[in-house]
């Protein structure tokens, strides 16, 4: 596996097919202009219904998904597409980094979550990583996940293997939250980058499959809902 944070290497790979979903035309134009060099933007949509139709036709590798849109937002697109098109990867791209938005999108099936202040290079790297099957965790997202799992250490869970993070996964998340890149984490923990990616993917899987009851409790505790 190539080091996906490195853009110079990534540029030699086949161009990824990317679809943009955002209700702000200005923002779509900006992203298209910035990404056009590195990836192929195969389509864009400004509404949930349009997105569902066009994604099913164009079948992109990665969908960049806005969180807040009329008619249900990115969540609605994810709910509609995930079962019918499991091969398409979704990367949430939002101006909001509120915990409930981030965790909600990840639980719905997005493979990563980045905010709109991200630099074009970082965005390209994130798209490539998502397309390769990895998760993209921003430091803030790692912090939310730690918060969600660590806040109640004594609560008994129905399926501990599913709902609890292992110590190693927790360590990886902590380093992510501290601003470390995957390769820096690998160096710090004396493991391979591949192992780091596995840990992160496991976290993502647990996050998606943890039961709804706990999430709602977590959100209610923080008065998020």
């Amino acid at each position, binding site marked *: 596996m190539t080091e996906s944070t490195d853009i110079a290497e990534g540029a030699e790979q086949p161009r990824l097919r990317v679809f943009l979903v955002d209700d702000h035309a200005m923002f779509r134009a900006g992203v298209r202009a910035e990404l056009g060099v590195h990836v192929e933007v195969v389509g864009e949509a400004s509404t949930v219904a349009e997105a569902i139709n066009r994604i099913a036709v164009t079948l992109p590798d990665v969908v960049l998904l806005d969180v807040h849109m009329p008619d249900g937002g990115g969540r609605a697109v994810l709910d509609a597409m995930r079962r019918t098109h499991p091969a398409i990867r979704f990367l949430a791209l939002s101006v*909001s980094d509120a915990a409930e938005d981030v965790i909600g999108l990840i639980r719905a099936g997005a493979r990563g979550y980045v905010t709109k202040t991200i630099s074009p290079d970082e965005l390209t790297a994130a798209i490539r990583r998502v397309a390769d099957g990895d998760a993209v965790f921003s430091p803030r997202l790692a*912090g939310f996940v730690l918060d969600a799992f660590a806040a109640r*250490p004594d609560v008994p869970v129905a399926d501990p293997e599913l709902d609890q993070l292992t110590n190693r996964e927790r360590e990886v998340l902590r380093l992510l939250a501290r*601003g470390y890149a995957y390769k820096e984490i690998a160096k710090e923990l004396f493991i391979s980058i591949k192992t780091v990616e596995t840990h992160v993917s496991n976290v993502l899987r647990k996050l998606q499959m943890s039961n709804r009851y706990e999430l709602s409790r977590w959100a209610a505790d923080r008065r998020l809902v």
Partner: protein
Amino acid sequence: MSTAIEPRLYRARHHRMVAGVAAGISEHLGIPVIRVRVAFVVLLGLSGLGLLLYAAFWAVVPVRPGETGEPPRRDLLQLMPFVAIGLGVLVIQLMVFGRTGVTGTAGWLVAIIAVGAGVIWHQSTPERRRQWSETMPVPWLGAVLEESDRRAFVLRFIGGGLLVAVGVVGVAAVYSPQADFDAVANGVIFALVGLAGVGVVAAPVLWRMFNQLRTEREGRIREQERAELAAMVHDQVLHTLALIQRNAADVKTVQRLARGQERSLRSWLYKPTGSPTERFAAALEQAAAEVEDTFAISVETVVVGDRETDERIAALVAAAREALVNAARHAKVETVSLYAEVEPEQVSVFVRDRGAGFDPTTVEDHRHGVRGSIIGRMDRHGGRAEIRSSPGDGTEVRLFMPIRESTGSGREW
């Protein structure tokens, strides 16, 4: 017996309330159906003429051709007001043509209440009724006032009517010539029962008034929130945008302004609580914000967990702030990561940059930034500071502060 009085007069079953007679007549004559219905009800007063007329029309007027299908369900709810009015009119008729005297007074009372209740009912529209019942605070109250549910409605109507009737009969009994003390007491009780009946009948109207007041108040609150938002946008966002336009050439200034504005909007939207003097997370975020504003860098802040501050936590925040300032001054980077975690036994803070870095062993003794403000301060308060750095590979300052329950004890850590 199907000879029509007038070939073009049909019963309009689509708008029927009983058999569509009134609706048919109103369509034929071009007058509002309500007038026809009221006329029938009033004619009821003339020895039941209205009822006879209606029956006659029903018998001889055919249903409009083409309306052979299943007619729509009757809206019994709509029928009720007319039943009430009819009852009142019948009682009035009884009073006018029948006996007079004490029982006459009671009869008038019944008649007026019945007519009034019917009119009120008729004027309260179904939408409003639904609105009331949806906003009902207590379920049983909703059941009493609920008018879309036919059973509850009938129950309420019969109950209210009965109470009124019993109350009136009681008053009549009190005024009768054979009155004695018991009768007076009974009369009072009956009068109260009567009042309760009126109350049940009048409840929807009272509720409507109450509800309207509430809606008005809610509207005012919404308006206030909107005004507050508008004021915030005006004071902060518009001014920031104006400043950005005037400083468009100065990238650093524009970035600083945009970042500050983004932060303030975010905290306004997502973080309504937390005072920097009381909570650790808020204090740390405030320190990061100050550094962002002063040095025009961005601090990526992640805080997991939160707790109250004490003097040790305050020292930790101050040390973290110093580490941020150092990173902003010397690392020559745009972004610094700040991560803090509150665990049951300790609070840890990590400040990391990917900048120039330095060799910690060569830091001179007189450099107070690192030795005094970070390491020394942490030591004095029972904490620990580690600095990891190498030239070219960035710097990470790690701060650990153990938590103990009573902060005033002299125990050393």
